[in-house]
């Protein structure tokens, strides 16, 4: 197990290395470089000579790999540069906005699991009954619904028409309801189908047939045997859902003016605040990769086939 974690950590470092390289390289594709942006943010148009001088000072004339090395060194020391728009460090910006995004993602994630699990299991157990058809039918609607449209509809009905919530989200319980609903509904629909498939696969396996033929009650089969086994693929699903939660945040946060990093990056793109965009991408990738590593480790801990093999060894 320790060996496995060590191996995965090495892979993780390699992937994160690639992530930083890719992020740095797409910055190189930007139409204006850091020297130009500095003057633009000051509101002046520099002469070509001055621009060239600044480039030299900032090290922009060095080979790309040298620049990357220098940048990576700074990133590893927690220095992601200075936001051109807010003239404060990217790290300060991020540390203020990130908790908001994590709050939204965590609440949505928990609610998603609490709804998707029972529905998925119910749908599998009652396969081809009316309740299964109803759940599958509704989940198809949810999957096909653009989340930004869902958000607008919820906003129109509950904020504009009924006046239960404010159109612009406030940072309290009432303010988080609509963003969470918008984020959760499509995900519940996706995962209900996958949980159903995972449970069905277990239900069709030989040990269930064996248990049934031995007269073990259906309830004991499902809660005692099928669910613990179906939990494994579902754990992986939860890891993947983090990607949806973080990626979807940009749209949802913009829609509800939620002051998280998704909202921040859309604003940063409008004003071409490159360091801020860089910071966003790297942080998102780091969080996502870390969560998936944790999920994989948990998977190993939960899987009796792997856990028991260790004992035999």
């Amino acid at each position, binding site marked *: 197990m320790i060996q496995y974690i060590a191996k995965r950590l090495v892979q993780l470092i390699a992937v994160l290395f690639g992530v930083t390289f890719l992020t740095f390289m797409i910055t190189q594709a930007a139409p204006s470089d850091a020297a130009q942006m500095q003057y633009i943010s000051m509101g002046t148009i520099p002469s070509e000579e001055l621009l060239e001088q600044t480039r030299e000072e900032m090290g922009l004339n060095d080979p790309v790999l040298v620049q990357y090395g220098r940048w990576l060194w700074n990133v590893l020391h927690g220095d992601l540069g200075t936001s051109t728009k807010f003239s404060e460090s990217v790290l300060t910006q991020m540390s203020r906005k990130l908790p908001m995004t994590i709050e939204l993602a965590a609440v949505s994630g928990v609610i998603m699991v609490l709804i998707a699990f029972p529905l998925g299991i119910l749908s599998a157990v009652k396969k081809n009954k009316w309740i299964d058809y109803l759940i599958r039918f509704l989940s198809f609607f949810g999957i096909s619904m*653009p989340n*930004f449209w869902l958000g*607008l509809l919820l906003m129109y009905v509950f904020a504009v028409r009924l006046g239960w919530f404010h159109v612009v989200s406030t940072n309290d319980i009432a303010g988080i309801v609509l963003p969470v609903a918008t984020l959760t509904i499509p995900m519940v629909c996706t995962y209900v189908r996958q949980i159903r498939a995972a449970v069905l696969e277990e239900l069709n396996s030989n040990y269930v047939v064996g248990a049934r033929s031995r*007269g073990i009650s259906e309830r004991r089969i499902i809660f005692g045997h099928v669910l613990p086994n179906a939990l494994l693929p579902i754990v992986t699903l939860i890891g993947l859902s983090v990607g949806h939660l973080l990626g979807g945040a940009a749209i949802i946060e913009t829609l509800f003016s939620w002051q998280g990093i998704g909202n921040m990056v859309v604003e940063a793109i409008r004003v071409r605040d490159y360091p801020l965009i860089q910071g966003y991408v790297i942080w998102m*990738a780091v969080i996502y990769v870390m969560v998936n590593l944790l999920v994989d480790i948990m998977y190993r801990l939960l899987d009796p086939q792997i856990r028991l093999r260790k004992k035999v060894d």
Partner: protein
Amino acid sequence: MGQASEEKGAVIHRYKEWKRHGRKALLKPAMTKKGKWLRFIIFAILALAVLFIAFLGPVLAPYDPLATDYGASLSPPSPEHWFGTDNVGRDVLSRILYGAGNSFSLTFIMVAAVSVIGTLIGMVSGYFGGILDTIIMRFTDILLAFPDTVFAIAVVGMIGPGLLNTILALSLVWWTKYARLTRGLASVMRSKDFIIQAKFGGVKTPGILFRYILPNVLPQVVVTMTLDIGGMMLSLAGLSFLGLASQPPTPEWGYMLYEGKSYLQTAPWIMLFAGLAIFITVLVFNLLGDSLRDILDPKEE
């Protein structure tokens, strides 16, 4: 004694099972082959109908989608303007019909492009294996380390908003899905008898790739493509909605929603109908993809 009662319990259980599900359940699979095809044909006709409307959009549209009429701005749905008008008095129905062509052609071109590129790379990677395979797969690992649309947002953010940049950004991420799918299939097939025999029979590498491996990965690729149409349309519309893809005044569904957002209180019909158009289209293609998967990939049964 104990054993006998256990057996008795089993018999009773089987009897209950039989009573619950009936003989029909034991004899008939959940859905017949004919039923699957019927479902597929119904959704295919629906999808064609949507496509038909999309490409006839300019003919069907009652108004010029760009013609402004300030006298009739923000008017609710009426017999003259079925879906109402927007803030400068443009007819929402006409804009949706014109926008359909844009949204569709873009989605199709992108799905076609990423699937062809991804499939080719995946086949080569899986069939040859070795160092090339390792490099390609590690590269996809890195791309997959970015959650969901984050990488696309970053690329658009760096090279600037615009339609072309959005296409580039989404393609950069999306091909990996097809590459990983076909790579997995191709690397399994590499050691199958029919490939080895073909090799001994003197078939050259391109022949093996295109005549032996491609036909075997194609069903899965086609299913994925059909299911991706909805996903791609949602991604494109999502980026437009953030104001990153399409530039006004081109009618495009995602951007119409973005515009409609500002008039949520005074003219909800703008966002209502534009969103409905996306929703119906994605729904139809998701259902089509799902029914196609049931026919081509009968794993679930």
